């Protein structure tokens, strides 16, 4: 398996012996595990069929010129007060990026160095992710990992835009991001993924984020790829003492999405708020798998998912909350809800709890199915059209997560997008 990868890597000669050794080790570990399949419980609902037939070595695309109109049109508007980094096909495009003063944006390092340090962590991650060799391959094949050190106590604000313009026939285009929020520092990150329409792009994105003690991260991830694109990603978040993270994911629909998130609350009193929205339509297949591993004393997490499956879409969410024996006085809460809005649509929820100590507060609830009949009747009894009442309740349903979007410019943009998806004239009133 992966002979192509071995060959391709051999061709990409680097002078760094340590790096080469790490690559060999990573590849060996990926080969040993093979790719996960639908028989692995963690990958049961993932759109990964046929992955083993890919060569996994996509031809390196020539990045389009920064001034190409299609690219410029694709890019989201800059967010006021945010430094912007645009990564096109795995390479930072300086012309499209705007580095703000260092104090506001932190330090950006793009280099291959430091990868070996992550080698051990990778193997560890693979274990935690239940046979996730996708992450290993993604990291291994990335040519230019992006490293972001966020070390401003006043708060760093960065908008990261990843663009894929190439087709993913041979395999996914790899990108790697490492983020560190330094002790006591604050950061606001908006991470957006885009693909050019019509090329059937396929991304394999790997993120490692470390929150040092007392740091605070507000991290919004928009997986707004093109409707014909596929997106595979592995996101790791490690939290130290007293750190606070708010991670919000919006997935308005790819052809295929698998987002694997592993958050480890190592530090005492570390806190995580995870919010996610997924909207599937047509033949889309969206799968999110989130493991929140509580290890530190007094760790606290809340998880909210809202999914909508229309058309023939399949929308799946697994929220696995684990409380280790060390995590005394953990408080973990989870609310997963999905609506089905199509005769052939499917929604899947797995609210999982794994608890290894008794000093814990854990609760979860999941609801899958139709809109609340009582709410619907209330609106009808006030004279609303059934279709309008349904759209309105769908909108309200997503509000639990959408209302938390920051900054306001981003929320406005996303609300407009979601309203267009719900496509009801009545809701035009709600449009910002």
């Amino acid at each position: 398996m992966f002979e192509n990868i071995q060959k391709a890597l051999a061709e990409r000669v680097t002078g760094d012996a340590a790096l080469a050794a790490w690559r060999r080790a990573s590849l060996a570990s990926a080969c040993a595990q093979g790719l996960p399949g639908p028989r692995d419980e963690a990958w049961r609902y993932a759109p990964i069929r046929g992955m083993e037939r890919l060569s996994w070595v996509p031809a390196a695309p020539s990045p389009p010129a920064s001034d190409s109109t299609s690219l410029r049109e694709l890019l989201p508007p800059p967010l006021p007060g945010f430094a912007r980094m645009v990564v096109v096909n795995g390479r930072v495009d300086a012309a499209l990026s705007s580095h703000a003063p260092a104090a506001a944006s932190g330090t950006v390092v793009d280099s291959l160095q430091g990868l070996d340090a992550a080698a051990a962590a990778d193997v560890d991650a693979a274990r935690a992710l239940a046979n996730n060799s996708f992450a290993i391959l993604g990291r291994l094949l990335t040519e230019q990992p992006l490293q972001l050190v966020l070390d401003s106590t006043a708060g760093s604000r960065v908008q990261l835009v990843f663009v894929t313009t190439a087709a993913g026939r041979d395999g996914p285009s790899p990108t790697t991001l490492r983020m560190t929020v330094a002790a006591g520092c604050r950061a606001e990150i908006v991470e957006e993924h885009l693909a050019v329409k019509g090329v059937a792009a396929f991304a394999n994105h790997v993120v490692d984020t470390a929150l040092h003690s007392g740091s605070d991260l507000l991290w919004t991830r928009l997986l707004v790829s093109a409707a014909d694109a596929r997106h595979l990603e592995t996101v790791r978040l490690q939290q130290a003492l007293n750190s606070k993270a708010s991670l919000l994911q919006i997935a308005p629909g790819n052809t295929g999405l698998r987002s694997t998130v592993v958050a480890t609350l190592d530090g005492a009193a570390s806190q995580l708020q995870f919010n996610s929205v997924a909207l599937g339509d047509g033949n889309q297949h969206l799968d999110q798998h989130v493991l929140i591993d509580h290890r530190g004393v007094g760790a606290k997490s809340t998880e909210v998912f809202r999914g909508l499956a229309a058309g023939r879409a399949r929308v799946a969410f697994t929220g696995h909350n684990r409380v280790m024996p060390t995590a005394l006085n953990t408080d973990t809460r989870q609310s997963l809800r999905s609506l089905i809005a199509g005769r052939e649509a499917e929604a899947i929820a797995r609210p999982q709890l794994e608890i290894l100590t008794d000093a814990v507060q854990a609760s979860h609830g999941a609801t899958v199915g139709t809109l609340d009949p009582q709410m619907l009747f209330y609106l009808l009894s006030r004279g609303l059209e059934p279709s309008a009442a349904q759209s309105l309740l769908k909108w309200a349903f997503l509000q639990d997560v959408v209302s938390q979007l920051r900054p306001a410019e981003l929320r406005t943009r996303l609300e407009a997008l979601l309203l267009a998806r719900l496509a009801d004239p009545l809701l035009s009133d709600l449009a910002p």
Partner: protein
Amino acid sequence: MLSIKDLHATAGGSKVLNGLNLEVKAGEVHAIMGPNGSGKSTLSYVLAGRPGYEVTHGSVQFEGQDLLAMSPEARARAGLFLGFQYPVEIPGVNNAYLLKAALNAKRKQHGEPEVDAFDFLTLVRSRMRLMQMDEAFLSRGVNEGFSGGEKKRNEILQMLVLEPKLALLDETDSGLDIDALKVVAQGIETLRSEQRALVLITHYQRLLDHVAPDFVHVLGRGRILRTGGRELALELEQRGYDWLTGQAA
């Protein structure tokens, strides 16, 4: 305005209404009283068209139309308003939005243009003052986190904005303290006119001290056991329901 003839209905498979007859004319205020389980709430749900309540026999005419053939939203637009006993919370949909959508749905039905934002706010604000409600309510989710009393005020507020021809108020007085009861009663009185009718479904007669009914009906075992004037309510308060419900065996 409303004519119910020999109405039989089931809820969740069991018979709740057994041959109920009721005539309500414009300008009248009717009170329907009765013990728990007598079918009071079922009557209001059947009239509003709630799914799960099945009419097995009988007819209901509203303004000359076959009410039972209409969808819940069509009934609402035709001027039937149900004040719920337990209004549901709808997080994420704000009160102002629902009020406006409901008002416009009704206006559209009557061939009127949509209300503009300014007129709408003026109207709602005046009604809120009447109900002694804080304007902050408007931007909150429908009934979300409201106390029992706040929910009931909100029901009356909706009624005042929508100005229905016939309002069915299901235990609107329950869970209210004395001050709130006065405010709610005042709201109800505001709507009272020659063109409209009110049906107050209640357990106790205390609301009737504030909104004087023209007729009082006692419901038991799914039909009307006795009809009288206001004095019947007072008698019930003194004697309870047993003498009537037992008598109708």
